[in-house]
């Protein structure tokens, strides 16, 4: 049979193996963000740590971070200490995927006693100790246990000391250790399937396959980049930030070799855990460029290599140890719209208007409203999305996550597990930015504690002071609002309490419009009225 066909089949096969791995992880994971947001990834790497393929999951944030991680493993373990039967682990934000909650596990693959590559997988775990998940730490030390790159399993023997250390340092230790075992088991499944495939095709290693993948992908990536005129493109975007506005700035340079994003001009590091290790900013930059220019391309070493980043130390998109980074996703998610905005000048018929961007997650601790009642504390988490920006030819998406791939949870299921009543979760009328194409609408949510509880929560709601901007003459989307049903205004940021007898009302931001509103199709205008989207 033709070698070309063999190699194509093998490429399909490794992607399928990784999808299986990701699916099993989603089903067994204890963390809400893994199962509802697909906050995990799985990849296969060659012996030099170059990523050959990655499962498509809901988390663009793992795109580059994961690809870079295995290089750190090789470096820190030392090539001479890599043995069959080993499993490595880390949650280092700067060597893994940007915060301590993501644990990355790598497993070397051997064929005929020769080291030929790695499987690696990452998942967000329920807890890593410290203050718990939230932006309030002032240093990464307060955010939890930091596991350096080390051996979780050494030549088949589990590192019991490490297991004990982790167990003593995290809440819900059974779930956390269970998830780590799950990651290791999924790598092992992948390893076995890869070895079977190599045997089936009578191959000693994956070098030929890797070269085939890199050559094909590299060529297609460069072809896609040719549609962007060479030059320098700039954009800035101001968002609410944690307690003072944050300006994100980018200068994109497009050359024959690729695209480089420099974040000079971005606001300084925050004293709170919203800072972003630069690999994570790179992930959302790369995701934005790939989704706009080459949506068909798979993520691997060759498709990611042309996208590089830089930033001065001390800006919020280039956090350094020991800056706190726990909720790095809020600023990280804006990086996609920031970079798309820059490139819009070059490819105006592709790039949408700005959207709500960061998720409006409701993460609360339900506590007894009367100190006398001994009700157990219960943690609640809901994912909620505003509207996306209008596209050049299509309206924006209503109440839909972008760039994140998060799903919302059923209100009924949420009410089954916690003392919460979700009174309303409905389209927010008139919130999509007007334009030839209308921005996606946000939503209105009303929630209250019940059964003798109150809520304490750390708000992390952005785009209250800074709306999503329209593009090409389109108007801005509506900005967000947060208040109680008695009219008490709430801050979008920081710790607050919802009393037992009150409802919290969230009005989520809409996406910006695209093009002159006067050019909107009269039928669409009429339909917006008939359906009650616009009044």
């Amino acid at each position: 049979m033709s070698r070309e066909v063999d190699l194509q089949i093998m490429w399909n096969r490794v992607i399928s193996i990784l999808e299986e791995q990701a699916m099993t992880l989603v089903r067994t994971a204890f963390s809400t963000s893994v199962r509802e947001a697909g906050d995990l990834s799985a990849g296969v790497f060659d012996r030099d740590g170059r990523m050959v393929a990655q499962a498509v999951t809901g988390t663009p944030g793992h795109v580059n971070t994961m690809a870079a991680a295995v290089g750190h493993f090789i470096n820190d373990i030392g090539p001479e200490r890599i043995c069959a039967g080993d499993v490595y682990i880390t949650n280092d934000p700067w060597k893994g995927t940007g915060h301590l909650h993501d644990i990355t596990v790598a497993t070397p693959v051997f064929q005929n006693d020769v080291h030929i590559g790695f499987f690696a997988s990452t998942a967000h775990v329920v807890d890593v100790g410290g203050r718990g998940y939230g932006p309030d730490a002032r240093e990464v030390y307060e955010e939890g246990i930091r596991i350096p790159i080390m051996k979780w399993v050494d030549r088949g023997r589990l590192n019991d000391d490490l297991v004990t250390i982790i167990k003593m340092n995290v809440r819900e230790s059974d779930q956390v250790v269970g998830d780590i075992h799950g990651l290791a088991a999924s790598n092992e499944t992948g390893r076995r399937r890869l070895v079977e495939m190599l045997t089936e095709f009578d191959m000693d290693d994956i070098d030929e396959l890797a070269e085939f993948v890199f050559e094909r992908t590299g060529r297609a990536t460069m072809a896609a980049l040719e549609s962007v005129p060479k030059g320098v493109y700039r954009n800035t975007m101001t968002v609410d930030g944690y307690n003072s506005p944050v300006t994100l700035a980018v200068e994109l340079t497009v050359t024959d070799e690729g695209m480089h994003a420099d974040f000079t001009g971005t606001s300084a590091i925050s004293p709170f855990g919203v800072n972003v290790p630069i690999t994570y900013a790179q992930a959302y930059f790369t995701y934005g460029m790939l989704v706009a220019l080459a949506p068909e391309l798979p993520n691997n070493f060759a498709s990611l290599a042309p996208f590089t980043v830089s930033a001065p130390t001390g800006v919020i998109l280039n956090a350094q140890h020991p800056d706190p980074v726990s909720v790095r996703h809020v600023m990280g998610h804006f990086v996609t719209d920031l970079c798309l905005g820059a490139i819009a000048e070059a490819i105006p018929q592709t790039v949408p208007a700005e959207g709500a961007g960061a998720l409006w997650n409701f993460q609360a601790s339900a506590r007894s409203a009367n100190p006398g009642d001994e009700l157990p504390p219960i943690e609640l988490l809901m994912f909620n999305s505003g509207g996306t920006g209008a596209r050049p030819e299509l309206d924006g998406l209503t109440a839909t996550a972008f760039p994140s791939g998060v799903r919302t949870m059923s209100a009924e299921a949420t009410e089954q597990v916690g003392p919460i009543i979700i009174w309303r979760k409905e389209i927010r009328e008139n919130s999509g930015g007007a334009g030839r194409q209308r921005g996606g609408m946000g939503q209105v949510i009303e929630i209250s504690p019940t059964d003798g509880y109150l809520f304490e929560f750390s708000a992390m709601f952005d785009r209250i002071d800074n709306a999503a901007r329209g593009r090409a003459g389109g108007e801005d989307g509506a900005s967000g609002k947060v208040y109680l049903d008695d009219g008490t205004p709430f801050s979008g940021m920081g710790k607050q309490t919802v009393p037992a007898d009150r409802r919290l009302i969230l009005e989520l931001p809409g996406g910006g419009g695209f093009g002159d509103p006067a050019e909107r199709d009269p039928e669409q205008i009429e339909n917006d009225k008939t359906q009650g989207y616009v009044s």
Partner: protein
Amino acid sequence: MPIRIGADVGGTFTDLVLEQNDGSFVSTKVLTTHAGPEQGILAGVQMLAEEAGVSLSQVEQFIHGTTLATNALIERRGARTALVTTDGFRDVIETRTESRFEQYDLNIVLPTPLIERKDRYVISERLNARGEVLVPFDEVGAQAVVDRIVAAEYEAVAVGFIHSYVNPVHERRFREMLLAAQPDLSVSISSEVSPQMREFERFNTVAANAYVQPLMASYLFRLEEELKRLGATCPLYLIHSGGGLISVETAAAFPVRLVESGPAGGAIFAADLAAKHGKERVLSYDMGGTTAKIAIIEKYTPETAKTFEVARTTRFKKGSGMPISIPVIEMIEIGAGGGSIASVDSLGQIRIGPHSAGSEPGPAAYDRGGLDPTVTDANLQLGRLDPSTFGAKDITLSPESAATAIVAGVGDALEMDAETAAIGIAEVVDENMTNAARVHAVENGKDLAGFTMIAFGGGAPLHATRLMDKLGLDELLVPPGAGVGSAIGFLRAPFAYEAVRSFYTNTDAFDHEGANRMLTELEAEASQFVREGTDAKLTVERQVSMRYKGQGWEIPVRLGGGTFDAFAADSLSTVFTKAYEEFFGRAITDLTIEAVSWSVRVASVQTKPDALATVEAASPATPLTTRPIYDPIVGGRVDAAIVERDGLPVGASIQGPAIIIESQTSTVLGSHHHAVVQHDGTLRITIEGASA
């Protein structure tokens, strides 16, 4: 044995099968008459009766399955329907899961809701998760909504209130008010159609039921009437998506249960064959013109799931369709059929489907205007199909047209000749189906080692031996009559109904009384539907979906008989832990376990056929001729024996390379495959000689 008829109305063909007193069949295929599907059935029924020499009054049972409901949902040809929900939840079916099913598509279009926002009404009322009233039902406001609905002349109304699966009282009250105002209105309430937690799925399911209800009810009663007029006075039963029979009245009230009834018939067909041959672990593989469907059947019973998606808008992608939460035979469907079109993407990778050339214009080899290369064209190029004896009537295949299309559509981009490009197309489509089978196995916690494959449908026997090699299976069965498998499957289905309900409890505070009460109610509900069709002895299977607290995915756990007592939590934990280990390979200790939804399936007891003894090779079959075909294991052309299947005696053996031809399909054997004709005419294929 009573005389019975099975009729499967599909998108292109209506398949009919008549089973005679002696257990033998006559079958026919007629074109589906889309304007009135009963017309095709009636014409076919008369043809069958004539051929079999029986009068329709002798027929004792008529069993019917149809894609009519599915097509109405896909093509949006249903009734003018209103959806009435709890205030605050008007947009649940529009905002969906708030996610994009395709991560890398800026121009993604999400499915439009079945019922537009202007047709969605809200009422002030609210229950909590325990079913207690938080906001009383607003009679005055509800009457105003009733008045608006009557004035706007809707044909159907779907009612879905929050937490109605725990307490249906408000939904029932509202239905009363609607029917009082307009007695002939079609009303569906979610607590009856699908009493399962999760409002997006439940509201969609009740909306879909209401939307197709007027159409389906009128069709079913018309068919019943027409059959009577022809003298067929026997009862008419419908096959539902879960693979059981229900009465016309039940089907007309819950037509959403008829969605996917055809594929369910296929799975029952495979399960019946598995029982006949005593194969306890089976992978059923059905390939037609547009898609391939793969299901796992253990102990002769297909697995059922509680929710699935219809009308996927984008490449069969998860999340691009409409969720329907009713019991359904679990299977995976991918865009891989004989008509699937091959292309080359920007990476130089060969891609197959999901677009299909269908029957019009059809593959390039049909010479009917199709210019794109398809899987059928590749099979022809590789010698696996005979140009003159292709299954479809009146069609002669053109190898030249196939080769031209293959080179233009795939070969040129990759600098390959027709042969190499055809190999690429065949290998990629086989790999796609293999990967789908593996993923489906993983999704269900199964390892396929030791499974027997059963292949049917026009395309499957051409590809089955290659799949068998790729999956590492050692046994394949290709039954006779595979072309009308679903309709035969209908005749093997039991009377069965699965009642499902969400009921939350956990092992820390197990509500054993609540669980007992609910299981009793579910059993009574399911039995009532089954009793509409049969007086036979019934079996009861009970199942609960459980997970560790903190997880989002439940696994099914079978329950024994008997009731729960105060110590039930311990025994349930043990059963769950064992099931979890089987599913994922390892269990976690000391965690609370949650029970989320419960189901009771009541079915008529069927006598399992005694397993047929395996027939060993007795005498080699005589080939008609030989033809060079491509063998992927050898990596080149080999001379294949061409053997006609009709008339092969029991025990006849065929050593590959060979092609066993019959009127509707061909079975391809590679050099290392060996086939022996079994007692029932099934080909049993094993690996012999040179192996993969």
